[in-house]
């Protein structure tokens, strides 16, 4: 079974803070178990405005005999997500997924570091849940950054999953003051590249600054990118990201089908 189109029924769609919502969607049990880092394209059936489906990473997934529940933790950023936020229980949505390549969870080292910026916490939560199960003996440290205290999202769940949590905000209204990459950089000496797996998701500026910090060192990191998408399945070539290819030449890779998880070192930022 691969990705396919499902009619989903919303069982919950609650505001978790001013601008972020948690949507739970029931789909048929044939929905393939997603990997952490994979996403779905979500669309309100028959609606031509907004015209395109919205790519949202999977926050959590569970199943029973009768149905699967896909959980999406999403931020309202524009027309599409605003309409999503207005959907009530029992509304139907079209779900195409699971799509993309998840994080590599096979070659996990004994120290795991996660760096989450804002709503970027969503795919990392699912990854944390997964790695807790598959790598119970690894040490895990999670750095979470938010704009301010009222923008904090998904943190309770992260705390439930992991004891070692660092929280910071840009303005210092919660946790340490500073960008999450700065807080991580202060700790970097604690980690050894050879036995540390780093995973990150967040705004472009955060990942770019993480690249500046890590690309001087031997650390490698898997990062999940976001980009505007039309198809989500690799056909339209719309969600291009500049990547340093095997022979060091520039290539435009598709965030949907070649990603959304990339090796941070391969991303060309300028």
């Amino acid at each position, binding site marked *: 079974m*691969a*990705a*396919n*189109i499902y009619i989903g029924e919303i069982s919950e769609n609650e505001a978790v803070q001013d601008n972020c919502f948690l949507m739970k969607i029931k789909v048929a049990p044939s929905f393939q178990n997603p990997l952490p880092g994979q996403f779905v394209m979500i*669309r309100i059936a028959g609606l*031509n*405005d*907004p*015209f*395109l*489906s919205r790519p949202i990473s999977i926050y959590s997934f569970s199943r029973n005999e009768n149905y699967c529940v896909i959980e999406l933790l999403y931020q309202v950023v524009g027309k599409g997500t605003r309409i999503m936020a207005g959907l009530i229980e029992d509304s139907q949505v*079209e779900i*195409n997924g699971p799509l993309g390549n998840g994080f590599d969870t096979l070659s996990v080292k004994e120290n795991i570091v996660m760096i989450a910026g804002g709503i970027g916490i969503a795919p990392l939560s699912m990854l944390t849940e997964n790695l807790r199960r598959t790598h119970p003996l690894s040490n895990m440290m999670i750095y979470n950054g938010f704009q301010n205290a009222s923008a904090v999202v998904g943190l309770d769940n992260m705390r439930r999953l992991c004891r070692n949590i660092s929280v910071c905000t840009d303005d210092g209204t919660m946790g340490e003051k500073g960008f999450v990459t700065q807080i991580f950089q202060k700790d970097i000496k604690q980690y050894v590249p050879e036995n540390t797996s780093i995973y990150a998701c967040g705004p472009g500026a955060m990942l770019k600054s993480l690249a500046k910090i890590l690309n001087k060192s031997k650390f490698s990191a898997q990062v999940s990118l976001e*980009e*505007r*998408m*039309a*198809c*989500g*399945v*690799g*056909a*339209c*070539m*719309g*969600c*291009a*990201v*500049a990547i340093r290819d095997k022979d060091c030449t*520039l*290539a*435009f890779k598709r965030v949907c*089908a070649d990603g959304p998880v990339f090796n941070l070192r391969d991303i060309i930022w300028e």
Partner: protein
Amino acid sequence: MAVKLGRLKLNNPVMTASGTFGYGEEYAGYVDLNRLGAVVVKGLSLKPRLGNPPPRIMETTGGMLNSIGLQNIGVEAFIEEKLPFLRKYDTAVIANIYGETYDEFKKVAKKLSLAKGVHALEVNISCPNVKKGGASFGTDPKIAARVTRTVKDETGLPVIVKLTPNVTDIAQIAESVEKAGADIISLINTLTGMSVDLNTRCPHLKNITGGLSGPAIKPVALRMVWQVIQRVSVPVIGIGGIMTAEDALEFLVLGAKAVEIGTANFVNPHATLDVIEGIKNYLADHKIKDINDIIGTFRN
């Protein structure tokens, strides 16, 4: 449901539009390719093309803008890596081809003609997003004719010429490529458009302009197909904003022998199959036995 476009026979009139269906395999998990009239693959050039820098797409009301810039793996990689997969299907495979020069069109056409499993060539003289070639071949009747002749001289396959709507008189271009030997004419490619980001006051697309597609352009496409059909005698394929069977039937009633479904695939990967089913239902409801009995039945 079978239709004949001259020598090109299709199981049904529903094709995919180039650039919206990858090389077929991207949608093979969603759509049984055997059920399609034809798969038209992403535009192929002589050498692989990098495409334009991102951002490349922007949603618009009832559609989208794109400036992909014909990113593709090149004709040779297509023949080696993608064509074997498509050969397994009992569906016509149509290679959309693009060149920056007449010579490139010639070489791409030749390579595809020698490869087994390609049923027709669709000549792209209408891409608005590339600096060289593309629409510049499609806006001048003489140049359009010369590209058509160049490709015709290299291939025994049926040659479809895909027209740009970004011209004053599309029927004039159609007549010109027909005279030059085009076996089939397909239209329309995207309409050039743009979109401004009010936060930055910059264009949403790095390329500044892009091609508008989606249901917003259907009325323009219908008008142009109608204009072309009145002036040429070769079969015409209707393209532009088709989302539903009703949309497709509008083109068929005007006289298009087939249609290509494009942007609809992005929002509904089953769009092609939904259109085929919808056409069958319409024919059954109206007690029409043969799809050909509805083609060209437009009254005015």
